[in-house]
Structure formats: C-alpha cells, structure tokens
C-alpha cells in the first residue's frame, strides 16, 4: 500500500537530491585505495555528510581508520540503501544476506567502520548479528574473541559455574566463529 506513492513521476523532485545522485565523491582507505561513490549514497554516513556539508571534502575524503576491504563492504551497503526504488523489504533482505556470510573478524571491522562513519542502520545490523553469533558460545570463546584475560581465580570461576550450571547447558563446541 505504502509503495504506490513512492516516486511521484515528474513532480516534486528535489533538485538538490538529483544533484547528489549524479555528483560523486572519492573515499580513500587507510591503505591508500580509492573508491568512487555517489554523494547520495555517501551521505548515509553522518560523518561523511558532515564533512561534505562543512565543505572540507575537497574531492577526496581520507578515511584513515578504515582499510580497503572493509570500505569496499561498507560502500556495497551504502549503494544498496541509496538505490532508487529499493523497498524496505528488499533492503531488509539485503542486510540479512550482507552480514550472514561475514566471519567474526570481518563483523568486528565493519562494526568499527560503521561506528566511525556513523551509519546507524549498519551499526545496528552488525551489532545484532554479533550478538546472535555469540549467544551460544562458551566463556573461553568470548575471552579469545574479545581479547579478555580472566581475572577470576579458578575457584571463583568454578563457584559461579556451579551456581548457574543451567546457563552452561547447550553451549556450542568451540569451533571457529
């Protein structure tokens, strides 16, 4: 029902929005790779939008905290979400598939990039996916993945485990990811 009035033909097209679609920006990753992206897709990142608005973009936008591989992924996401006529359902499906194949390390890279670039939707999606992957994991797996060293004594750990033994039932065996 809501889709009927999606793109009113001819009328009411914002000339500024049209300009953004045709204008391209160049994003430069930490390892020096350059990516072209339409302005309308790039500004889905609040951080990039601010840079563009403040006019400090000057053609090439350096992103020293994002490597090329991660930036390529982020750009795929941005392009899909800026696509004309992509329905919410299509975007939802895309998001689902976009994160489903990523390994944990990649998810961590993408969540950091989404945080730095302030891309709310992507940030939410990846955080949700990380939580989903974590929920049946062991304590040891979590420590390894999040680089945490236990500061409990073995006795303290044993005591906690004993008190809530049910929380240890049905935990995944520690295969990678």
């Amino acid at each position, binding site marked *: 029902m809501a889709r009927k009035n999606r793109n009113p033909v001819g009328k009411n097209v914002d000339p500024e929005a049209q300009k953004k679609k045709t204008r391209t920006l160049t994003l430069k990753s930490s390892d020096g790779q350059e990516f072209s992206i339409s302005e309308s897709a790039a500004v889905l990142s609040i951080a990039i939008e601010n840079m563009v608005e403040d006019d400090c973009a000057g053609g090439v936008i350096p992103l020293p905290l994002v490597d090329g591989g991660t930036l390529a992924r982020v750009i795929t996401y941005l392009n899909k979400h800026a696509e004309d006529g992509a329905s919410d359902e299509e975007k939802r499906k895309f998001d689902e598939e976009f994160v489903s194949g990523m390994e944990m390390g990649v998810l961590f890279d993408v969540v*950091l990039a989404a945080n730095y670039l302030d891309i709310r939707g992507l940030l939410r999606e990846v955080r949700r996916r990380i939580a989903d992957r974590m929920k049946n994991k062991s304590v040891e797996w979590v420590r390894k993945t*999040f680089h945490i060293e236990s500061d409990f004594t073995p006795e303290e750990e044993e005591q906690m485990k004993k008190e809530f033994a*049910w929380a240890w039932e049905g935990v995944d065996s520690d295969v990678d990811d």
Partner: protein
Amino acid sequence: MPNLPPEIVTDILSRLPVKALRRFRCVSKPWRSLIDSKDFVKLHLHQSTKTNSNRCLLVEDTLLDAFAVDLDSFERLDLGDPPLHDHGMANSCNGLVLAVSDTPLLWNPSTRKFKELPPTPLDPPGDVKVYVNELYGFGYDSKSDDYKVVRVTEVGDGPDGEYLYSETKIYSLKSNSWKRVSDYPHILPSGKRVWGVYLNDALHTVVKHCHHCESIMAFDLGTAEHHELPRPDLTGENVGVASVEVMGGYLTALVPRNMNRSEIWVMKEYGVKESWTKLLCFAPPMPEPYMNLTPLAYSNNGDEVLLNYDGRCLPAYSLRKQAVRIVDLPGLVPPFYNVACFATSFYAEVYVGSLVSLDSPSEDDGSEKQSVQGQVNAKKDKNNRDEFLSVGFKLVYLFMTLLSYSQVLVGASGDEEEISWNVSMELFNRCGVE
C-alpha cells in the same frame, strides 16, 4: 580481531538472552560488574522491549504444570523447576511473574530466581467474619523505581457473607513489606485471575456498574489512586467492554458483539478516547454465550496477533488476511472435553526475558539463598506424564478444531471460503505430520 570500544560491547551484550549473560558474567570481573549493574539491567530490558525480542510465552497447562516457549521460534525453553507448586500464575511485568496462592511469590523465569512475599493478614484480622474473594495485580512504579503487588480482598459479614468492603494492600519489593491503602470502591470482577493488567505505572481493570454499563479504571501504583480511562466509542445496543488486557505496550479491550463474534479494540495512544481502534473481529468455532478471548502478542512483523481463546487453543489472527490459524505448542496438553463439553483450560502470559532482580535493598542476601534452596528442593515429576497424555489427545482435539473452524468460516463471503480451506489444510497437515 580488533578491540571494540566499550559502548559497542555494552550494546552487543544488551542484545543477548539472559542465559548467555548468566554465563558471560564469568568472562571477567569488569563484565560481571557491567552485567550485574542496575543500568545494564534496564538497558537490556529496554533493548528487548524496543526490538520486540526475548519475548516468551509462559503457559500453565491443564495439568497445572508450567512451561515456556520462545515467542519467535516457539521452541520450548528450559525453566528448570518452576516454583509454582500450589500457585496459579497471574500477570507479569518486566520479566517478573506474579504467582498467587496463600503465599504469593514473584518469579523471574529467565534467571530462575523467585521470592516469596511475606504473609499479610487482613487488617484488623479480628473483625472479619467471612472472606469473600481475593485478587492480585502486579506492576512497576517508575517514579519510585519499585515493583508493587496489589491485593484486593472482599470482606463480608453475616451467615451469607454479605459484602462489607474491599481491603486493598500494596506490597513494595524495595521495602519487602505490605501497606494498606484506601479500600477498593468497587466489586471485584468475576471469573478473573488478575485484578488489574499493568501498563504505564498503573493496573487496569473493568468495573461493571450495571449490564453493559462499565468503566475502564486505572489504579496508579505510585499514588494508589483510581482514575477512569476513556472507553472506545461503540455503536450498537447492548455492547460494552468485557475486559481489558495489555498487548505489545497497548491497552486492549474485549468487546463481545453476540454469540458469534467478539471484537478486540486497541487504544493506540494511552488515555486518548479517539485513539481506540478496532483491531480484529473473532468468530468462535461454535456460538458462545460468553467468550473469553485474550490478546497475547503481536508477531514480529506486526501482521499476526496471538490470542488465547478461552484457555482452549492459541489462534494466531492474521490482520492482513483476516484469517486464523491455530498455533500448536509443543508440550501443551489440550483441554479435556467431557460429555457436557466442559473443558478445563490453560492459562498463558507473555513475559520478556530480563535480568530484573528480586532482591530488596533493605534486606541482606536472604532471598538469593531462598531461591537456590527452592530450586534444589523442587522435584521433577511431570515431563513423562505430559508426553504420554499429549500425543493421544492432540489428534482428537485438532480434528475437533478442524471441524468447528470449517463450519464457522464456510458459507459467508467467497473470500472467507478460501480462508477456511487454508485453515483446514494447515490443521490437516499438522495432523499428518504428527
């Protein structure tokens, strides 16, 4: 693997189910402090409510055993040994469930902790001749950040127990004590388990003044005052609100139209009369003089409404298709129909998986000990019985439901005929699978 900043880690943890968080307390001392902190408990609850996740359906079946399923997957959850031995489930709030008996208790099924409330006699006990009726309600008072149980006891006098007054007492979890407040100025509703349903710091109930003349009342848990809420604007004669419930953060009203249909209305904006909207119209398989229909939850995409139909079955009503399918819960013992078609019923309540603690700050660690003790003492004596009974009765029951739904839905408009076929096929397939 890179290190994540603490705010991202906190956000990720707030999306985990309680079981995982119980385990991950063990990761390190900082993680334990974070997960145990009041702010995190609130964040986790907020996240679950906002994203409609961690919702569970707690069912007290026809054999008075309790079990729970995850509302997204309908997979059965392990509750350990529920402490509901001689208790009846009442309502839930923020993941805590009130269970009622001579000694009511609050229970968090996700953390498996429970706490028996201290006993409170009628006040003054000597004066009372006859006890008439008693109902409870339970909710959260955000102003004092406290959980409160309300008990309304109708007290009578004389040989036939003539009604005198309704004593009202409020239990505060923070102080772990009861306090008497002004008497409830109305007669208690009949045939109800819960006095008031919780929403927005208040308990809601329908007060009947006369036939088809009623008010929706809200009892403020902070001020202990009653105020009236607007009713939906209903057209037609002899039509009124039979009961109110809370679903997905909205107040809903059951409006029986006649023996063949009942409507569920929803108040989209709290306290605004004009926001009352008809949500759905439900036709029972057979005409009913009084239909007990309780909306439980919206599906995640918002299209389906899960209903409890008189404690007999769980219809899922599709708002888009305006059609019903019956949700088959693993482990639910179907009602026992005797010759007179009388059926014992099950009770169902939705709760959110939360870390909310039952400790009262005013006491030492007593409640924790008590809960652990309770888990150890409880006995396992039911699962085999469940399995055995359910298989035999399920087939008969499904077949009965199949027949009755076809009867109702066939014979109206062409659209509905198609729906009835879908419903039937679905039930039929399910019979075949089992």
